[in-house]
């Protein structure tokens, strides 16, 4: 198992480098770029431009620039924002915890909804509950997340005035847990409602597969009650594909957060990325993309390892 993990990690790093390389090349194909604001300035002469270009390393071939960027990335220098003139790592550092907070709470709420609903739906297949749950899950899967967000704002923030429409905490008020929670409810609900529909369908299918197996029938035949059979025998085996699906989906959670952060003015990484994209701020875009890609690769790796660890039938080739 140790060598299996080591080999998967060794495969992951080149993949990450390749991804940043492709995006770097794409970004450098963009018209405009860091020099455009100087080029538009009539007081900046051609010599000044050349000097600036040399100073910023832009006179070097793109592959050389990429190698430099990668080298300084490894030493912790992620570059400076072209717009705010602040270190990229610092800007990401400010926003990342907010995104992680949003993602973790969303994730917990999603599972808290999906696990009981999916389980009951499977063990009471074709009951009214199952029909309601599967229909809702199917419909929920077809809803655009940003529209759910807008509708929730319209109902709960504007209409009923129960909750704030956006932001992370009330300005000028002492920070309290209750205040923070109030700001979390709508974005989390937007994301969790959508994500839960996905896992309900998944868990239901996985459990239905398992429930028909012989060992479940044996467990019933031994005289175990349904709760024990489901908890001890069925759920544990159904959890294997579910855990893999969750690990593979974690980056998706991150992507979903991007749109949701924009709707609710949540100061996270997704919103930072969107802001940087609209101002073509390369260093920030590259920095966030590197974090996002690392996350995707790490999650894929995690999925493989967890799968191999949970299911003894998988061989570590």
């Amino acid at each position, binding site marked *: 198992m140790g060598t299996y993990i080591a080999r998967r990690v060794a495969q992951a790093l080149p*993949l990450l480098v*390749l*991804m940043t390389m492709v*995006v770097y090349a*794409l*970004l450098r*194909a*963009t018209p405009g770029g860091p020099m455009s604001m100087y080029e538009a300035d009539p007081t900046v002469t051609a010599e000044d431009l050349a000097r600036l270009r040399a100073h910023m390393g832009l006179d070097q071939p793109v592959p050389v620039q990429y190698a430099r960027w990668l080298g300084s990335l490894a030493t912790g220098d992620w570059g400076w924002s072209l717009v705010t003139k602040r270190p990229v790592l610092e800007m990401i550092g400010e926003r990342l915890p907010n995104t992680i907070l949003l993602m973790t709470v969303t994730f917990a709420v999603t599972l808290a909804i999906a696990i009981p609903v999916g389980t009951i739906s499977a063990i009471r297949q074709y009951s009214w509950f199952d029909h309601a749950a599967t229909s809702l899950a*199917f*419909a929920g*899967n*077809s*809803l*655009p*997340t*940003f*529209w759910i967000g*807008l*509708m929730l*704002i*319209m109902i709960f923030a*504007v209409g009923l005035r129960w909750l704030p429409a956006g932001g992370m905490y009330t300005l000028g008020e002492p920070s309290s847990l209750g205040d923070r929670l109030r700001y979390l409810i709508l974005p989390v609900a937007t994301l969790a409602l959508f994500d839960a529909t996905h896992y309900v369908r998944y868990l239901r299918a996985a459990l239905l597969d398992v429930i028909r197996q012989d060992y479940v029938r044996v467990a019933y035949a031994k005289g175990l009650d349904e709760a024990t059979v489901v908890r001890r025998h069925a759920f544990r085996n159904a959890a294997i594909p579910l855990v893999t699906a969750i690990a593979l989906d974690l*980056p998706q959670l*991150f*992507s979903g957060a*991007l*749109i949701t952060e*924009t709707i609710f003015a949540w100061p996270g990484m997704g919103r930072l*990325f*969107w802001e940087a*994209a*609209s101002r*073509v701020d390369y260093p920030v*875009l590259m920095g*966030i*993309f590197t974090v*996002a*890609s690392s*996350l*995707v*690769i790490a999650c*894929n790796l995690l999925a493989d390892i967890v799968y191999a660890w949970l299911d003894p039938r998988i061989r570590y080739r």
Partner: protein
Amino acid sequence: MSTAAHARLEPVAVGAASMATAPAGPWTLAWRRFRRHHLALAGIAVITILATASILANVVSPYHPTKTNLLEMLDAPTAAHPMGTDELGRDLMARILHGGRVSLAVGVLAVALAVTIGSTVGAIAGYRGGWVDNLLMRLVDFMIALPSIFVLILLATIYGTSPVTLILVIGGLRWMGTARQVRGAFLALREREFIEAARCLGASPARIILRHLLPNAVGPIIVAATLGISGAILTESSLSYLGLGIQPPVASWGNMLRNAQDQMTRAPWTAIFPGLMIFLTVLAVNYVGDGLRDALDPRKVGTD
């Protein structure tokens, strides 16, 4: 001796002929299964109505989608404006129908592109095998590992936001599932006797792929394509909502929602109707995809 050899060959020839003349061919059987899925039939009806109304937008709605009318700003739905008007007095229904053209066209064409790329890559990988397969599948792994929404936003920022670039960008990022599916089907099929027979008869690789392998893999492709359309429509509307998709004044359901944000407190209908249209379309397409999966998925045939 010669009659025995003849008899052994015959089933091949008769088999091919009976496919066409048999009372219940695979497509008839699929249709019979599909017909039982009432929600899928309803889905087809909804899509047909939506598509027809969008194409005939000028006939269905008397208003021009970008014509402003300052006397009728933010009017609630009435008989004259069934879905109300927006902040410039533009008729919302006209905008939704014209936006439907854009959303549906981008969705369908992006998927057409994705299916074309995916089938080609999958077919080559599955048929050739070996290092070609290895190389192409590593490419697929790489594309899948890319955080797609970030790449979409980057590409939309770099290459602009015309409908054509949106189709290219969305289609170019959504073909991997089809590629894997086609490759899998090809790997399973290419060792079968009828392929061997075709090869013995001297059929070229192109003929074997197009005439013998692809028709047998078409079921999963159709299912993936259908479900892909709903995904592509959602992606386009998300991008347009973020301001990186279709640009105003051209209406798309996504950019209408972006626009609605500023006045949805005073005029909720500007936010409700475009979202409802996305939901309805995606739901209908998903039900059709679900019905098609039940009808076409070869794994289900045995259990039916």
